[in-house]
């Protein structure tokens, strides 16, 4: 039997202590993500979607329930789970290639490391910028380096926390195509948090729609469209409408108006 690299989130709740009072930010999240699946979480700010990612990666404690990644119950960070943040979070004092190399988590020879770094640099399209310092790169290129750093350790599950949120519209579309290409090439399970509905539809097999205070799963929408997807396609619009209904609570929404 093949190794299972899916993710099970089993009745997970999360509370924070604020002024001595327990405030629930996530309520009974229960969802399973299959091995190799691309799933997005969309929701208004404050719905706890970033907190959920932090629990999956092992940076936050789980108040109730449990998360199982592959065969492992999540209690602390693991090399099996990589993460890309909204900010590239590169170390400004080392070059792009050194930053990517930092993502390597197992012992190996210098030559082997160099080979892996080169492979990643080519995968994310940063050839020629190996020796540059992060400050010398544009936002989109920094994010490419950050993705390479997350991928080089060969995690089974990649978490993306609004990775393109800080980029301009053109760079964002470019990066969405890139991440799709990487996903198809690397066949990893990916979980993306975003507030960009089009981005979610363009990339995902399924979209988890969350509602805030406390964060709950409102609906899970399957996107059964072939890739690459056409953002102006009628089915695409239909799904977008379905998601917007979830947010705005109205059945009649003028899509043209939204654009």
């Amino acid at each position: 039997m093949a190794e299972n690299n899916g993710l099970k989130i089993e009745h997970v709740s999360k509370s924070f202590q604020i002024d001595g009072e327990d405030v629930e930010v996530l309520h009974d999240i229960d969802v399973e993500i299959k091995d190799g699946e691309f799933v997005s979480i969309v929701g208004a700010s404050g719905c706890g979607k970033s907190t959920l990612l932090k629990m999956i990666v092992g940076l936050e404690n789980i108040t109730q329930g449990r998360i199982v990644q592959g065969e492992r119950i999540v209690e602390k960070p693991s090399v099996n789970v990589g993460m890309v943040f909204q900010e590239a979070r590169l170390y400004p004092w080392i070059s792009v290639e050194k930053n990517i190399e930092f993502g390597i988590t197992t012992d190996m020879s210098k030559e082997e490391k160099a080979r892996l770094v080169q492979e990643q640099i080519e995968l994310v399209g940063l050839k020629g910028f190996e020796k540059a310092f992060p400050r010398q790169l544009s936002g989109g290129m920094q994010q490419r380096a950050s993705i390479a750093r997350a991928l080089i350790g060969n995690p089974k599950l990649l978490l993306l926390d609004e990775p393109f949120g800080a980029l301009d519209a053109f760079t964002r579309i470019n990066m969405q195509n890139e991440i799709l290409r990487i996903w198809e090439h690397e066949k990893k399970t990916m979980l993306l948090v975003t507030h960009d509905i089009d981005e979610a539809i363009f990339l995902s097999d399924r979209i988890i729609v969350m509602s805030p205070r406390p964060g709950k799963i409102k609906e899970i929408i399957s996107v059964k469209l072939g890739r690459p997807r056409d953002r102006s396609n009628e089915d695409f619009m239909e799904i977008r409408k379905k998601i917007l209904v979830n947010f705005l609570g109205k059945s009649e929404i003028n899509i043209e108006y939204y654009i």
Partner: protein
Amino acid sequence: MNKKNKSILGNIFYTLLAPVVIILVWQLASNAGWINSTILPSPEKIVEKLIQLIANKKLFINLGISIWRVVQGFLIGSILGLILGTLMGLFAKVNRILNSLVGILRPVPMIAWIPLLILWIGIGEGSKVAVIIIGTFWPVLINTIQGIKSTDVKLLEVATILEKKRWIVLAKVILPSALPSIITGLRLGSGTAWSCVVAAEMIAASKGIGYMIMYAREMSQPATIFVGVFSIGVIGLLIDKGFLKLERHLLRWNRMDE
């Protein structure tokens, strides 16, 4: 002439303008007899004295001794400051235990330690180096703590997710991120170290640039005093410039141009 050369020449002009004017006025006033030369010797006299002190090697011997004391004291003081600062920056408990002690001891002027140090270690090299150690220690300590504490949590999270060992996080994330602050501490420390050695030598020494100045006072040789004072200034400036250069080199990742 290209633009770059022009701006360098311009820089030199503005840098030298004020000293040259002062020296000229001073020399003219001395020539005219408006200044009593036993109190304020003319620039010409001071230069004569400088040449004489260079020729009989007295200036270099004394400066050399002072610099050697500073090097020893600075190295020990900054290593102690770095180690303790790192511990205090990393561990809140250590910080809590030592914080009040630092608060009381740090404001004590270096000169106030000299009598005690002489009593403890004697009048030899030890007490002078000890003063410099103390002088270097404080700025390095404070800036190291500051630098370590201000490490970006977001960058630390990246290392946590990648399951990096604690010492790797320290060496590759915390210390590099604290480096700008640490270098500032070292630069300030080197400045204090240099003034400490002069102060210590003025109080109790038989060699060194501070001693040379005090001895000249007893002998009423104002020109020698001036040579001493100016050399202290020049060496201090060179030390500072050296650290700025080091800073530029080590923190080149921090600059946009290049």
